[in-house]
């Protein structure tokens, strides 16, 4: 008998655990894949839960609004402040508005918005659906002849996909405002002049890429939160795990998507 395939050999247990984990990983990937396919199958088929989508959009917006306002402003302000010394060295402080606008529009606004929404919205969706699952509310919907997937999952994923790009646009505006406060304080630049310089270096691709990124991030946050919550189990412990899993997985995927989209869009520059 091959020593490793001998159950008495400690190596056997190690390998079987590794094999089981690998199997579990691929099974999970397969389940997520089915979950996403189910979303596309059900989301665009009538009847549409328009009222619930609007309610969810409002919830997503309201939940993140204050935090995004504060964070967006601080990011813009700090980025401008930290970039100033480097530009002073080259006597290029007049480029500051352009630098801030490129950084915020291309990367910071969608990324900061997505990270905040992952924490606020993703965890909330995970916990809400998780708690509905463990208290059998989802089962109750199912046995009453309604479609819980459509009502709970499709509406939330559509809401995050619609709302995150809007919030990212708002973050960009607030971030630029933060940048303006710093520039105006130091150089006394007028708002009109600052804004003219902000839009000068931006091209159509910057806006499109930023929008595509935000849509992808919004979809990811929604689908991950819903998947974790909808499939949670093990009682209250499962609710905590669903909320935590929603945040960690969404943040990880947001960074992966950022890399991929940046790589793709840089080919068009």
């Amino acid at each position, binding site marked *: 008998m091959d020593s490793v395939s001998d159950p008495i050999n400690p190596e056997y247990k190690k390998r079987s655990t590794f094999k089981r984990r690998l199997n579990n990983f691929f099974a999970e990937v397969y389940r997520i894949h089915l979950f996403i396919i189910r979303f596309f199958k059900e989301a665009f088929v009538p009847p549409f839960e328009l009222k619930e989508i609007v309610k969810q959009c409002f919830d997503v917006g309201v939940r993140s609004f204050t935090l995004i306002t504060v964070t967006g402003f601080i990011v813009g302000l700090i980025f401008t402040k930290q970039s100033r010394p480097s530009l002073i060295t080259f006597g290029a402080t007049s480029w500051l508005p352009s630098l801030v606008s490129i950084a915020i529009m291309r990367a910071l606004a969608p990324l900061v918005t997505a990270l905040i929404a992952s924490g606020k919205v993703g965890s909330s969706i995970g916990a809400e659906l998780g708690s509905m699952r463990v208290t059998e509310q989802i*089962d109750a919907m199912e046995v009453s002849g*309604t479609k819980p997937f459509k009502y709970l999952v499709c509406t939330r994923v559509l809401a995050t996909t619609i709302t995150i790009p809007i919030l990212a646009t708002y973050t960009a505006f607030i971030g630029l405002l933060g940048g303006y406060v710093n520039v105006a304080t130091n150089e006394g630049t007028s708002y009109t002049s600052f804004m003219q310089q902000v839009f000068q270096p931006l091209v159509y691709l910057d806006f499109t890429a930023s929008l595509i990124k935000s849509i992808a991030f919004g979809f990811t946050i929604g689908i991950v939160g819903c998947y974790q919550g909808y499939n949670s189990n093990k009682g209250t412990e499962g609710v905590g795990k669903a909320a935590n899993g929603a945040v960690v997985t969404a943040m990880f995927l947001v960074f992966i998507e950022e890399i991929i989209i940046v790589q793709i869009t840089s080919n068009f520059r």
Partner: protein
Amino acid sequence: MKKAKVEIDYTNEVIKIRGLKKAFEDFAVLRGIDLDLYQGENLVVLGRSGTGKSVLIKLISGLLIPDHGTIEVLGQEVTHITDKALQELRIRIGFSFQNSALYDSMTVRKNLEFPLVRNRKGISRKDIDVAVETVLDAVGLSQTINQMPSELSGGQRKRIGIARTLILNPEIMLYDEPTAGLDPITCIEINDLINEVQQRYKTSSIIITHDLTCAKSTGDRVAMLLDGKFEREGTFDEVFDTDDPRVKPFFDYNFIH
């Protein structure tokens, strides 16, 4: 309140289960169950915790898939129908959950409207209001219409849970531990409500419980789940007329202690 006499049609099986098996990983819960529920009958399923009583009604409603066997509900084989047909069948089955499973984010009114609005296309606002008021009146909780589930007591939640299933006029009712966690007086009220539902809505019901008072006052027939199979079946007195050590403690605990 004493259970009134009901008419049971013993020629018409609304649920017919044959050779049903279900296991979770290596643990076999149901090991080949045969069961018939007749039109108009209240069948009580008794058994210890973890014997698969709740699993049985979840299999009947299609929430779980059996490993083996057939489940015929209102003439349709649950395990071999399309999603659409299952959805339509579920409208004819009411499921009252152990913890009521009321939607936390909705008021009592919205909880009751939810299945109605989604299953009766084009229903008018007036008809919705009438249906909601009728079922709330049937469970005696008209005053709670605008309350949130968190503001209700355990007994009220159970009643609203039953009202939510009644709003679709089901032909079959499945009750999962309807008296679990309730005080004795509320238990009696729930038992009376189950009997009232049977008479008023002409339903056939499966009542899952380990409360013998509930079993005695609501059941037309009792089936006892032992080691994954129905080993004793009949009237309440017939089932407990035994010295079987797996059955006797059940009776002794409920009626002697």
